[in-house]
């Protein structure tokens, strides 16, 4: 397994897109979260905003970049034919996928953590100026606070799971364009449908099973009881999607000719 890990790490490290994408993940997470925090105001007490969630808004977009990075690690091999060399060199195909998943986790975790913590720190400086003060019922954002810590750590974990989900789908689908189309649809279409459908039961069901809606409940720190699914159960749903995608990808990788 060490050889596989080494090979995959070299591929990821030397691909020119990796560095830029990781940088973009950090930048988008911080900038978009800060911009949102700068625009939301809390004019009076009981304004109903979730300060932690506002300061993590950027994750909604940076997840797309994480997904692209993950899809690239496998679909670019299919595009260039490199996958045949990889399989010849490492005949145990499941190990290739496992090595890719492990190697992908590290940089995603690092970039996600830097981005998410940076977002919370930057937003935490802006929010008190917009009325998120103790007079209106908001303490300063602090990682020492249990629910904020859960939201922050959960958001990093969320990004990692999205990366692995994307890797699994891209392994199963092979073609780069189709893979990224499927992943982005899963990330963004289901939440829009859940929003537009007005039947409350359907809406609730979609929010419980959609990887993004369920997964991002981890960011909610106020009114947790009114959520369609509890934060960690939601993360579990996303983990289920990820596991299914990786298993499916593994199956297709083993069954099909490269």
């Amino acid at each position, binding site marked *: 397994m060490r050889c596989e890990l080494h090979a995959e790490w070299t591929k990821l490290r030397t691909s020119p897109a990796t560095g830029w994408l990781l940088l973009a993940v950090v930048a988008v997470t911080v900038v978009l979260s800060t911009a949102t925090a700068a*625009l939301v105001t809390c004019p009076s007490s009981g304004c109903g905003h979730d300060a932690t969630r506002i300061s993590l808004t950027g994750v909604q977009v940076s997840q797309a970049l994480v997904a692209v990075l993950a899809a690239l690690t496998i*679909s670019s091999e299919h595009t260039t034919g490199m996958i045949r060399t990889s399989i010849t060199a490492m005949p145990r195909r499941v190990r290739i996928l496992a090595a890719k998943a492990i190697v992908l986790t590290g940089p995603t975790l690092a970039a996600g953590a830097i981005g998410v913590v940076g977002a919370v720190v930057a937003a935490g400086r802006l929010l008190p100026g917009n009325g998120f003060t103790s007079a209106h019922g908001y303490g300063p954002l602090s990682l020492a606070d249990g629910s904020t810590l859960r939201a922050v750590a959960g958001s990093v974990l969320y990004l990692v799971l999205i990366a692995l989900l994307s890797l699994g789908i891209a392994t199963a689908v092979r073609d780069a364009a189709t893979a*990224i*189309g499927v992943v*982005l649809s899963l990330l*963004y279409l289901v*939440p*829009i449908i859940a929003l*537009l459908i*007005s039947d409350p039961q359907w809406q609730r069901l979609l929010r419980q099973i959609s990887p993004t809606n369920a997964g991002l409940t981890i960011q909610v720190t106020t009114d947790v009881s009114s959520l369609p699914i509890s934060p960690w159960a939601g993360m579990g749903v996303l983990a289920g999607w990820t596991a299914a995608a990786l298993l499916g990808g593994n199956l297709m990788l083993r069954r099909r000719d490269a």
Partner: protein
Amino acid sequence: MRPRFVHLLRAEWTKLRTVRGWTIAMLAAGLVTVALGLLIASGDRASCGDGASEEACPAAPVGPGGEAVQDRFYFVHQPLTGDGTITVRLTSLTGIITYPPPGHDEIVDDVVPWAKAGIMIKDGAEPGSAYAAVMMTGDHGARMQHDFTHDTAGLPGGASNTSPRWLRLTRSGDTLTGEESADGVRWTGIGTIRLKGLPDEVQVGLFVASPCDLTVNSSLGGSSEECRFTQATAVFDRVDVQGSTPLGTWSGIEVADDDGQTDWEKDHRPNGLVRSGDTFTVSGAGDIAPLGDSGAAPIERTLTGTFAGLIIVIVVAAMFVTTEYRRGLIRYTLLASPRRGRALAAKAAVIGVVTFVVGLAATAVTLPLGTRILRANGINILPVSQLTELRVVVGTAALLAVAAVSALALGILFRRSIAAVTVGVAVVVLPYFLAVGAVLPESAAAWLMRVTPAAGFAIQQSIPAYPQVIGHYAPSTGYYPLAPWLGFAVLCGYAAVVLGLAALRLRRSDA
């Protein structure tokens, strides 16, 4: 021999048609637009009445312009035959607002910005009939309005005992002229309008309306609206009607009253007329204005599946060219058409037209079917003209086609499908998700729908936002900041820019 353009078109059409995956994907793009639209429509339900006896909600009255309107106010009127003039002096406009923020705990003495009191000539007292009116408003000065959607501003200011305002409305055939004055001697014109087909006998009189007081609680992920009862009271004197027929008697009617009374009306002051000598004190509630989306659905509600079709179309259009780069086919394409701009034009034309046809088939089926489902579920559809309906149907198909052409150009720019698809989705679908899904605050959402290619979604908006009606106008409620064609033009501008860059790249770099 240089190939004729039609041969290039034929070649590109053959390439597109013969890849089975692409054909299936294009069909899927159409089907998913239809299926999602109908699914969302069938999940939408509404009923009125109290709990046990659910019944269909009554349809809103329709104004002379064909739009749904609210037409509820207190009208003190008498018949007028032929030409004539009504002149009044308004000495006071006051009112109450029930339980406004922040406390929501008391009834305050105040008028809402668009409370209206003045004089009106109307084609009968039926809701939705044609009218012209001159009025004072709570915050927006003197106005002349007619037929619900038209609004002309006069001088600003209010009316009080110390500085009363005179209003005059003159009918001469189809032409109505509104004037105002501070002293009843020197008159300033506000507007002259024509009401086509106004019958000989009309109702002339005094009116008071006061729209409900809207508060929007917007938080990320959704918003809630609350509209609280308000009432306005106006005091008129020096009421003078000049006409060919002798002055009749005044009678009061609550136009479009729903029989229900708020506690305020029961215990304090009902809507109506109190007359002492020549002084008329009129109280009223409601509004005379086009109806927004409250309780009824705009036609584009059925086309919400478009963005799903959009992703598929972007993927196919990008692959249409990136596959050629991957397989080396692009060299033969350029060999066959040495003038590379023409090769690009042929490719763009084929993907654009195919997407347009698929999109048009999808929207032309979804809109009538979807509105039928919504009606069957008890949801009233806001009526629009056939031209607007055509614009929504054709415009949505054009939106898909322009997005496809842009994705194709991105494919040539990046030469890699993953980059082309990601950028295509990120600039068209992602802003729509962030804005319409209320992920971002409303100010940022409106800004996104102005400057990103997603501005093109404005082509779907069938009901405009009216400045003279206070509403919750935000992308998440279906109101885009740019006018339909302007928004579409923004999308086309972006498409033109990437197409130009793609042409440049195609000519300058080796394939």
